[in-house]
């Protein structure tokens, strides 16, 4: 049920125009600090949700963006992996507040990048089966849903951001970080 609700959600529900914000880069302190829990029904939360989606949309290759990445220390992020070839289960565009992992399994290692760490990519092991819980901005309704493959990876990457962790903090080893060859 929650899965269908997330799938049906679009940023049009927010009812406000999103603004494109600047993305902050490491070593900005906000990226290494756990965000505060956010009130999903507050008007400023709704505006920030729209801003995150708008900023994600204009950023080439961006499949997710957390509030700390635009300099706001709150536990909220958007995701949309629809166009990514490694995606399997898809929930389209969605924003989650105060999200947490309920269940995870089947770790797989893959190369990740991040708009806030533009000069590096890195190998990170993450669960490829995932169940998450969070709240939808605006209505504040709680959703719990399962996903897999690349959407699961994107969700874990974004939830890490809300906890003040970068993919660098999960590097698989001393040779698992690479200077970026191609800038999107």
């Amino acid at each position: 049920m929650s899965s269908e609700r997330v799938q049906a959600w679009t940023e049009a529900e927010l009812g406000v125009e999103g603004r494109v914000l600047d993305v902050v880069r490491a070593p900005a302190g906000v990226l290494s600090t756990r965000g505060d829990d956010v009130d999903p029904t507050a008007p400023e939360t709704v505006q920030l949700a729209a801003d995150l989606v708008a900023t994600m949309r204009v950023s080439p290759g961006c499949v997710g963006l957390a509030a700390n990445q635009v300099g706001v220390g709150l536990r909220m992020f958007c995701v949309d992996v629809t166009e990514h070839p490694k995606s399997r289960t898809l929930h389209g565009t969605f924003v989650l507040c105060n999200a947490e992992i309920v269940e995870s399994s089947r770790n797989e290692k893959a190369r990740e990048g991040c708009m806030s760490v533009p000069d590096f990519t890195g190998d990170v092991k993450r669960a490829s089966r995932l169940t998450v819980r969070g709240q939808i901005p605006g209505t504040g309704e709680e959703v719990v849903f399962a996903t897999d493959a690349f959407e699961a990876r994107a969700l874990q990457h974004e939830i890490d951001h809300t906890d003040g962790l970068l993919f660098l903090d999960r590097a698989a080893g001393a040779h698992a970080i690479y200077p970026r060859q191609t800038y999107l």
Partner: protein
Amino acid sequence: MSTDSTDLYAVTVLGHDRPGIIAETTAGLAGLGLNIEDSTMTLLRGHFAMMLLCRGAVDASAIERSLDGLGSGGDLDVAVRPVSDEPTPGAGGTSWVLTVHGGDRPGIVSEVVAQVASAGGNITDLTTRLAGELYLLVAELDLPVDADADAVAAGIRAAAERLGVTATLRPVDTDEL
């Protein structure tokens, strides 16, 4: 390959990068019948850096002569020296990955790795990178079997806090197949 009556040599090549350095080095070693064992090569800020261990029944001066051409341009330093066989590390202890990142400043590596050393930990692999203002260290390390990993992690975090950087210590996750 038997290690009897043969010597182990460390060969280091450092300097200006160009295509063909590894090919020339290994051709010289192969020509002497040397067997390359462990080796590592990387680019450090664009500088070529290679270390390799090779074994064979030759003396160091013969190896140096075989690599003479490499250093003749004046932009590569080549060094050859005999090394002794190290005993295989004993089993036991625990393996960890340490990540440190933050704004660049002097002393990040020394202060953080001092915490590892004071716990009797041994760093087995280390990479540091600087990109713009971001300094990054990723190390693999072993802690003694009786080490208090939580205390080591706390010491590392405290050192990182003093430096204004972030540190994460995680157990190595090995999937045996």
